[in-house]
């Protein structure tokens, strides 16, 4: 299996027999072409074929890349639905969902390169899908943060900062009261 793969792989060829002679110069040919044979057409045909194949591959890659880039959108919708289901009170379920909603985009963003690795091709423009992917994930992240905020777990209010402040010290001290006994 491995060997076969190696043969098929475009970069790892050890040897090859090229049955199609690409040389167009007549001097290099020992035998004249048979009558009715037009070399040019074959050449053209052959090159068209390989180009078509490559085009298809890159097209397929680009298409796949776009698909991958759009995948978080579905995720986003589902997350949104689950968040809506979780409600706005702080409990185990809503906290779990919110944190997974935050964690997924972050982990996805960390591995952007790896995700688009298979579709890397000199002829495939990956910037667009990548940007879309990042944008969608950022959207997911924003959704998570929004949810976090909705749950009141973000220190966006004065109260979050003030509640840990100790009371101010007093300069003066006063004591006394009613007389003893």
């Amino acid at each position, binding site marked *: 299996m491995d060997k076969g793969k190696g043969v098929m792989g475009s970069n790892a060829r050890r040897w090859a027999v090229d049955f199609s002679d690409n040389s167009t110069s007549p001097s290099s040919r020992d035998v004249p072409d048979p009558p009715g044979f037009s070399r040019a057409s074959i050449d053209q045909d052959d090159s068209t074929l390989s180009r078509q194949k490559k085009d298809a591959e890159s097209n397929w890659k680009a298409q796949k890349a776009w698909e991958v880039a759009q995948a978080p959108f579905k995720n986003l919708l589902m997350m949104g639905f689950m968040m809506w289901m979780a409600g706005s*009170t*702080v409990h185990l379920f809503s906290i779990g969902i919110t944190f997974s909603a935050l964690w997924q985009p972050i982990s996805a963003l960390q591995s952007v390169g790896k995700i688009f690795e298979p579709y890397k091709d000199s002829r495939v423009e990956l910037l667009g899908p990548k940007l879309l992917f990042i944008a969608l994930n950022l959207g997911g992240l924003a959704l998570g943060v929004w949810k976090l905020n909705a749950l*009141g777990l973000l*220190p*966006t*209010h*004065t*109260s*979050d*900062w*003030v*509640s*840990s*402040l*100790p*009371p*101010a*010290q*007093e*300069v*003066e*001290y*006063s*004591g*006394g*009261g*009613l*007389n*003893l*006994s």
Partner: protein
Amino acid sequence: MAIRVFLIVLLFLSFTNLTYSLYEDQVGLMDWHQKYIGKVKHAVFHTQKTGRKRVLVSTEENVVASLDLRHGEIFWRHVLGTNDVIDGLDIALGKYVITLSSDGSILRAWNLPDGQMVWESSLPGSKASKSILYIPKNLKADKDDLILVYGKGSLNAVSGVDGEVLWKKDFSGESIEVSHIIQSSDVIYVTGFVDSSKISVYGLNAKNGELLENNHAALPFGTFGELLSVSGDMFVVLDEMRSKIVIVHLRNGEISYNQKHISDLTKDLAGQAVILPSRLPGMFALNINSYVLLIKVTNQGELVLVDKVNNGAAVSDSLSISEDEHAFAFVHYGDNKIHLSVKNVNDWNHDLLKESIVIDHQKGKIDKIFVNNYVRTDRSHGFRALMVMEDHSLLLVQQGEIVWSREDGLASVVDVTTSELPVQKEGVSVAKVEQNLFEWLKGHMLKLKGTLMIASPDDLAAIQALRLRSSEKSKMTRDHNGFRKLLIVLTRAGKVFALHTGDGRVVWSILLPSLHKSEACENPVGLHIYQWQVPHHHALDENPSVLVVGQCGPSLSTPAVLSFIDAYTGMELKSLSPAHTAAQVIPLPHTDSTEQRLHLIIDDKQHAYLYPRTPEAIDILKHEFSNVYWYSVDADNGVIRGHALKSNCIQEAVDEYCFDFRDLWSVVFPSESEKIIATMTRKSNEVVHTQAKVMTDYDVMYKYISKNLLFVANAAPKAAGEIGTVIPEEAWLVIYILDTVTGRILHRMTHHGCQGPVHAVFSENWVVYHYFNLRAHRYEMSVVEIYDQSRADNKDVWRFVLGKHNLTSPVSSYSRPEVIAKSQSYFFTHSVKAIEVTSTAKGITSKQLLIGTIGDQVLALDKRFLDPRRTVNPSQAEKEDGIIPLTDSLPIIPQSYITHALKVEGLRGIVTVPAKLESTSLVFAYGVDLFFTQIAPSRTYDSLTEDFSYALLLLTIVALVAAIFVTWVLSERKDLQDKWR
């Protein structure tokens, strides 16, 4: 970090039930209850051959009790009201205990075996007078056994069976001050003085109270003290110079008297003589200096000195041991022992009993002695003596030994403070405390059985016993959670006790030598107890100490007494008797290098004296000189004054520890419309966690947190008395919240138609107070919360993120922040004896009010019920925030009585102390009884519960580890097999 803690608290709060309660088997785990009776005034023995031997006592705490003579336990006990002072106690008809109380106006009969009240009769009268209870033997009127009661200026003959008043003779018209009732067959003689120099005798018919005769005899001189009955018709009294004894003889209503100089009886004694009030047939005891003279009165009215006892202590009443034999006991001191002698009145040379007893000298001298006899198997007489000691404790002595003793001084706690226990030292092994590992394991296995519900009833009993006598809670070292502490209490007798919070035992006690009677200090009383030295970090090798402040008499003008006591050993470190008085003691918020707290003692001439008297203390005070203020509340004149330190005293004698004050401000309340009835401040050691209160919409209100706030409640002068004396239109209650540095009135509010008594508690930025609403005929509680408006514009989050705010910088009261107050009132069912609030180490845990109810129980009420934000229909967000819908009255949930089924009889005060564990607060309630418990207002969110099964946890872990190991081995084996295939 704090947000996280807050979140956790919030999370747990949402799970918390509103009530704090415990299960039946948790009673006694963390709480203890001790029953006392107080200092015994009267004692009557009831030692019939059949039935249990008991002694009936009445005490200065207005308790009537029946004690087991064998063990000193209480059979039954009744605590009468604080105004219902018991004047007389006796047994009638052999089955009723008769008490006379409230200045001779209430007579009650209690069933002797079980203490149930049989009857009560009220004997009204107009004139205040001495009250006498006299139960004659075999005196009947129409088959009813008579009880003669003199009180409120009239003589009443009451039937012993049902308490009905059979006849009444009013003496309030005469100017006689009745001192004795004598019965002679069917005639009752009432004797007394008119203007202390004229003896008057009334003879009354016992059957119907008809006046038979009236005789007078004028003495040529005045008299001192009271008439003492020596025998049926003979009395002795001292003349006004206290140098002569007057013998008054009544014979069938005729009065004759003769007199004798004390110096004729004994040559070498001079001084102020006092006749001791012991009733001895044919004898009396006279106290001169430290000598007790026993003087016999012959039938002819001659006086014979029979004995002279040095260091005499107490003489008992006489006791009839057979037909005509009377015995009595007296004690005197000698070589660190107490010598008890019981003698026959008629046969002086013969001792019926002579014993020497060693009594702990911390109990002081003997105050009173009561004797009782029993017949031994050889038909001779044995005696037991009940002794009331100087520290109010009660001892029973029999056959030269102390059979039992009761620490009844603890019934009159004056003040309480706490002290930490010593830190656990290296070398004290755990095994010593935990017995051994086997025992420990066994205990936990039992617990595990209990958890898995496979325990038999025997096991359950064993588990309960194990929990109750857990050695952990009564160790003498500091614990991690701070549950173990010493409660240091000062009692009215001038004795200081240290009680262990684990089981309530007395760790040490000291009868303060500085509070002993002496010539310089006539009637010393202990007033307050303060923490003097609380060693923390750098002074840990020193023991903590407490300061007891007392004074030499009941009035403010008597000099002060200061005593410093080591809190671990109970030794008096030093005592001072300064020349100045102690009108106020102000513990300052500064300590010196040995962690001694600086105290200012202010005398009645408005000088302040600094303690400790060290140069270092002066340096510290000089540094803070301009920031120390003092305020005085003059309730009589309705004035509150503020003062500030000025300079050293200008006196003849230079005293650099003495300072003068200058007056800064005064608040004068209009005396025609307002009278100060209550004041309250925050506790100086209270810890507040945050200055902000978060509203439901994440808005912030800033609490106005100041230690210098004073709550003052003023009532209309007419309505300052009891409830029901004024109509609602004449009554009002005005409350003020003052700043005691500047004298500024922060808040003032009037409650129309309301009156005191006001009980208040001040904590953080709120005050809760309790009063009576005359219009609604109900008690009410109000809450006032004060917020700082000048901080309210601190709303920009970025300023907080960048730390650019000044909310934690020190503030001065002179900055006059703008404040607003929010308040709300609710009805409350009970009348209240005391209110306190829980205090925790960091002030994060929500608060509960501890209300000492009229039923002598302590009720825990969430502060959330007293929240001005309560509305009738709170929004969803508000509900989530824990706001309870507004109701007109505060709920009383039976499970939230922290005293559960117990009563703290005669409840006077509640003290709360924070434990180290944030969730928990220690509560000590005192009155006639003592009660201690731990409470967690928001549950113990920061620790595992006490009944958590560690064994189960351990077992689970072991099982899991075993399972992991087994599955690992199995999977290895399977892998190997797979590879060979």
